[in-house]
Every structure is written in structure tokens, then in C-alpha cells.
């Protein structure tokens, strides 16, 4: 696929930009934060996004979606990233619906996907248990007791876990703690007995939850995919989610960069614009170069999914490693170049760095993905 957008894609991106600008600028996110909103995102705004079709972009038409590509979803996320719009697209569409599309039975898909496409359902994937991204590190157990399973364990960093209407939980049905084999995915009702959900308040004001499972009973019919083969579902789902998250990161660091370059053109010190200083010009150019590379890599990574290429996993790691470093560079430099005003809560630039910090760690940081890239390339 080309690395340029076609007319329809460009129109979608323009529409997304306009929608976000008019309905959910950064002040929207700020208000949710300051009022300690119980949901953590606006159901009204998300409903409007779903009406525009965004929640169903990658869901096939037979399940009520648009059946478009991940590139299109990435364009929407990029524009959301530019304005730090809180929305459950990653948790619900990429992770939750992603698992159903990859491993769900037809009945499970019919049951859940249409309500995802309509923007009514919020889903959460509870797969993390340790302090950093580690999807095979599963200690939560699922004991088979006749026709049902009993789940015991603790999950952490469950995106939108506090408001999800349905959880997908990874648990071990066999094997050792870090084995890839032996992980099984279960559809769990968050209201079921033994499920305790505690919302975490995070630096980016987005949503994650710690979830405790104590003897939670799950029927065998609520197994998602094959017993013991959960990683076969998780791997491609996490690759796609990672790539789409890098699109959001591209949006957020593009905006942080634009804001900073604009500041260099307006702030006066020593009777001159600070943008005339070579020390700042050269660092701004370094940021520009990183962003140019980032754009190309994100576009190619999104295309790798839609073109069903062999290198989706490689591109997921290439994109996450690059965007993690690029977003870190740009958002940190943005604070420094803004000087004192950049340290204030009143200025938006700090919010970009905070969101970047969360994205950097979500689905693995740069060193995790560089190691994985080398492993995938056979060295």
C-alpha cells in the first residue's frame, strides 16, 4: 500500500480533526479531570463518535460495523491524540472486540460486536499482572470444576476496567508462570460474585483498574478461543492495538511539536524571538526529523495490518520503539522550551507529556520492543 492517503482516507481524517476540534478540545479532557468524572470519558461524545462510525471501523459489516481498515482507525486515533480526547477505542475496539474478532465464536461475536459498533458496550482486557508489559506472565489460575471454571488472581492496569460491561480475563489453565502455552481467555461479567474492581487514578487522567478475582465462576461456554491457546489470540490483538496506539502517540507528539514551534516564534527574551537562537533551532530540527520518520513508520505499520503482511509483529515493535522515543523526546523538549509556563498546570503542554508517559509504557516500552524486534529478526 502507498504511504499517502487516498481521497476517502483524507476526508475521514479531516472530518475527525474537525469533530475533535469542535466537540472535544483539550478543555474537554481537562474538565473530566477536574470534576473527577466517574466514567473518565464522556459517554455523550463517545456516542457521537460511534454515530460517525468510528467504534465500528474495523468491525465487519455482518456484525454491524463498517468493515474498513486499521489505517482508518489509526487516522481517527491520531486526531484524538492531537487533542488528548479520552475515549475507550483502545480498550473496547482494539483489545476487547479485537479478541472476539480473532478468537471468538460466531455466537460470541453476534452477542457483543454489534453493541460495540453502536458505541453502547465498553469492554476491557484484563491481561497484565506485573509492573511492566508482560502478556505471558500469568499467575491467575482457572481451575476446571466440572462444567465451569473458577478464577483466582489479580489483574492490574486494566484499561477502562472500572466501567467495562464485559471483561476478558487471561488465566492459566496449564503450564508455568511465564509460559506462552497454557493461557486461556474468559469472558467475565464484572458484576459476578468474587470480582472486585478498583479504579486507579493515573498521571494522564485516563482510566485503568486493578481487578481481584476470588473464586469467580465462569461457564465453559464463556471461554474465548481454545483452552490453553490464549496467546494465539493475544499476540495479534496486542500487535494491532500497539500499532494503533502509536497512531495516537503520533497525534499527541505532532501537536506538542506544533505548539512548541509556535511558542518559539512568539516568545521574546533579550529583545528577540527565542526562535532565533541556534541552540533551540537545532533541537527543533531534531524533533522535526524524528516526527517525519515517525509518520512514515506509523503509516507503514498500519498498512501492514490491512495488507495482511508477514511483518505485522515486526512493524508493531518498530513503530512502538520509535514512537516511544520520539514522543519522549518531543514532549520533554516541549516542556523545556516553554520554560516556566510549561511547568504550570494551566498550560496544556504538560498534559501532553503526561499522556505520552502513559503511552510509552502501555504495551511495552522502547527497550522491550527493541529486544523483541531483534528476536523476531533472529538475532
Amino acid at each position: 500500500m502507498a504511504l499517502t492517503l487516498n481521497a476517502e482516507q483524507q476526508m475521514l481524517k479531516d472530518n475527525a480533526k474537525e469533530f475533535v476540534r469542535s466537540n472535544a478540545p483539550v478543555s474537554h479532557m481537562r474538565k473530566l479531570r477536574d470534576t473527577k468524572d466517574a466514567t473518565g470519558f464522556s459517554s455523550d461524545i463517545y456516542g457521537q463518535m460511534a454515530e460517525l462510525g468510528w467504534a465500528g471501523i474495523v468491525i465487519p459489516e455482518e456484525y454491524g460495523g463498517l468493515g474498513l481498515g486499521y489505517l482508518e482507525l489509526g487516522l481517527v486515533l491520531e486526531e484524538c491524540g492531537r487533542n488528548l480526547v479520552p475515549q475507550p477505542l483502545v480498550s473496547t475496539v482494539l483489545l476487547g472486540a479485537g479478541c472476539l474478532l480473532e478468537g471468538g465464536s460466531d455466537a460470541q461475536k453476534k452477542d457483543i460486536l454489534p453493541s460495540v459498533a453502536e458505541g453502547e458496550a465498553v469492554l476491557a482486557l484484563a491481561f497484565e499482572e506485573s509492573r511492566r508489559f508482560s502478556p505471558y506472565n500469568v499467575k491467575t489460575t482457572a481451575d476446571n470444576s466440572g462444567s465451569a471454571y473458577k478464577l483466582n488472581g489479580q489483574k492490574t492496569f486494566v484499561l477502562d476496567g472500572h466501567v467495562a460491561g464485559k471483561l476478558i480475563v487471561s488465566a492459566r489453565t496449564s503450564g508455568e508462570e511465564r509460559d506462552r502455552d497454557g493461557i486461556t481467555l474468559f469472558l467475565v461479567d464484572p458484576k459476578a460474585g468474587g470480582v472486585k474492581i478498583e479504579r486507579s487514578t493515573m498521571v494522564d487522567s485516563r482510566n485503568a483498574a486493578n481487578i481481584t478475582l476470588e473464586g469467580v465462576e465462569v461457564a465453559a461456554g464463556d471461554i474465548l478461543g481454545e483452552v490453553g491457546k490464549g496467546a494465539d489470540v493475544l499476540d495479534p490483538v496486542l500487535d494491532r492495538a500497539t500499532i494503533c496506539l502509536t497512531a495516537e502517540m503520533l497525534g499527541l507528539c505532532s501537536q506538542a511539536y506544533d505548539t512548541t514551534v509556535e511558542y518559539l516564534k512568539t516568545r521574546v527574551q533579550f529583545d528577540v524571538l527565542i526562535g532565533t537562537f541556534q541552540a533551540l533551532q537545532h533541537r527543533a530540527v531534531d524533533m522535526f526529523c524524528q516526527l517525519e520518520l515517525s509518520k512514515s513508520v506509523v503509516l507503514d505499520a498500519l498498512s501492514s495490518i490491512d495488507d495482511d503482511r508477514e511483518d505485522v509483529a515486526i512493524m508493531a515493535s518498530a513503530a512502538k520503539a520509535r514512537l516511544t522515543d520520539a514522543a519522549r523526546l518531543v514532549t520533554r523538549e516541549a516542556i523545556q522550551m516553554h520554560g516556566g509556563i510549561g511547568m504550570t498546570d494551566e498550560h496544556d503542554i504538560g498534559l501532553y507529556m503526561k499522556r505520552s508517559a502513559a503511552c510509552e509504557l502501555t504495551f511495552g516500552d522502547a527497550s522491550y520492543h527493541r529486544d523483541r524486534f531483534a528476536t523476531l529478526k533472529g538475532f
Partner: protein
Amino acid sequence: MSELETFREEVRTWLDENCPPNMRTPKDGSARLPSKPEEVSAWCRTLADRGFTVPTWPKAYSGGDYSKEQAAVIQEEMTRIGTMNPAVSFGTMMLGPVLLEFASHEQKLEHLVPIARGEIRWCQGYSEPGSGSDLASLQTRAVRDGDHFIINGQKIWTTMAHLSDWMFCLVRTDPDAAKHHGISFILFDLKSDGVTVKPIKLISGQSQFCEVFFEDVRALAKNLVGKQNDGWTIAKRLLQYERNMLSGLGGGGRRRGGRRRGQSEGRQRGNSGPSMTAESARRYLGTVDGKLGDLTLRDEIVQADLDQLGFQLTMKRSNEEAKTSGPSAASSMFKLYMSEMGKRRSELMMKVMGYQSLGWEGPGFSQEETGTTRGWLRGKGSSIEGGTSEIQKNVIAKRVLGLPSGD
């Protein structure tokens, strides 16, 4: 079949019938035979007669009047059979384009035709001992004397001057004007009386660059391109072409690729090919449990590969975006990034090779090893020549980012 595909068939047939066996990969796939200089010249003339050496130039100047798309097809088909375009040079990639834009019809006829036919080799008389990054401060003087200009002064870092026939040269024709306004762009024969060429030995032991001295050199006034004292406009335009050439965007004979055959079926491989640096590192560092023996270097190799991947994708994206003609200001980033990236990769290879990176010549070191070391040394110039990285950043800051000028 589309018009372009019909054209491709024509080019393919013509190449098949006209390309001599010594100038291409043999049809049975065996190794290519060495070619003699006179065979190369003959092949260059054959290509030029067909307008294939500079396909997009007008026919009146030995070009082919072909579109950019057709030129790309010609290049792809030549790459496919493993042949080369011997005319590719500073003449075709730098001087030719500015002559097309700024020269008179007579000048074009006189100079473009020999460039297209590979008959005259050109060198670039730009830098001077006191004018490197600050090129416009150049001091070489040219004074009008009847039909001639009399030139005195010195150039330095003139690439391949010792193997060139003519020079395109920046000279000061008005010493009283502001520095950008007193410069002219003139062409002359290096065999003229008063020209002395001395090769410069580099830290790599090689000598691609020369000092060139002018003592009362008489250049014909009719070979002054554009208006007198207005040469800086031409000089800058040529620098853009130079940057494109240095970053591999010029579309010349050394372009990689062509389309890979036999990959249309099944899943596309994308970027799943092996890492070349990791392949060499495996030999020097060994592996433990399948991973390279030095985990720090392994991480550095990944970073180098990721930079390379990002850069290649960005060149591809930029080419797709730049369907409009002419080099863009954004092309400035390619020269900057490519030279810095190349230097990092060379440093990395030196680390990977360990003691084997210290060889200069003689036994104990393979040709590949000393080649890498010489390349590491030579590569230090990549971020200096053609505008230093710092100058590139100044240019990008002002032209692309729109940051204000201090003066």
C-alpha cells in the same frame, strides 16, 4: 495494457537487442564479465542516441523528452538486466539541471550535449580555503577583459578535479557589492593556461578531492551562465540538486531496487528480511541462546536498523508525495539524516569488529575489514561536504519550520 506498460515492453526489447553482453548481467545468470573503458563509452553513446542517458531532457539537447514516469521505467529496466548508465555524473545530476533552467540556448547546445553523451567530465568549483560553510564569502576573482574573464584565486575540496575536463565555478565579479550579490557562475576548460590541480590526501588514505589554483586563467565570457553578479541564485539551485544526489534521490544510475519478481503471490513480506549488520555481528560476536553475544551492541544494532527502516520509509513517502516537480525544501532533511545515520552505522561496525577494525593494510585483515575502516574514516566527511549538518539544520529551521532569522 497501459501506455506505460507498452513503453516498458519497448524499452525491454530495445535493451535486449542493444545492450552488449559485457555491459549487463549475462542472461544465464552467471557473473558479469569485466568491461573495457572503450566498451563503456560505446554503450554510453548507444544509450545517448536513444535519449536514455538523460531521458527527461529535451531531444534538442540529446535527451529523450520522456516523462518522469517513463524515465523511472527506463531506470527499472536497466537495473533489471544489471546494466548501468555511464553518463551519470555531476554533469547529468547537478550542472545539467541548472543549465536547463538558467542557460541560453547556445550554452545548452554547447554543454548539455557532451554531458548527455558522457564526453565531458565536470567538477564543481565552489568551496575555498576561507569559504566552506560560509560559501558566499568566496574570494576567487574574475575580471572582464574583452571576450574573456581573467580568473585568479583558489578552490578546495573540488571533487575529482584531477580526473575532470571542465569546471563550473563560482567567482566574484563585483567585490564592492554585498557578498551574495557580487558572484557569477562561469564554465571553463581545466586545460586552460594557469590552472593547477593538486589532489588532497585524506585521513582515509584516499584522494577524491583536490585543490585547484588559478593564475590569470582566461575563461570565455560567453560561458558565464545567467546574469553577471547574479550567480548566487544558480549556486543555491545547484546545491539543492547536490543534496538530492548525496541523499540518493537524484534517480541516477545507482538507484537501488527495481521491482522484485516472484513476490506477488502469497503474503507480502514487508520488512521481514534479515538484518545485514546483525549477520556480520554474528560472525564477530558469536551468539548465546540464539542472541548476539553482546546485548548492548545488539540493542545498538536494532536502533541502527530502526533508523534505516524509518529513513527508507520516509524517502518512499516523500517520493510519493512529491509528484510535483523540482526538489523540495524538505529534501534537506535527507542529506542531514542520511549522513548522520551513516556515521552512526560505521561507528557501530567498528565496535562490532573489535581489533579487526584497526587494520590499515597488509596481512591479518580482510579486504572487507580494511574497506569498512577506510569507509568509517571517509564517512566523517559526509556531514561536512555539501553543507555541514549544522548548516542543514539552520536551513531546515528557517525554510521548513519557519523559525525567525537572527539577522
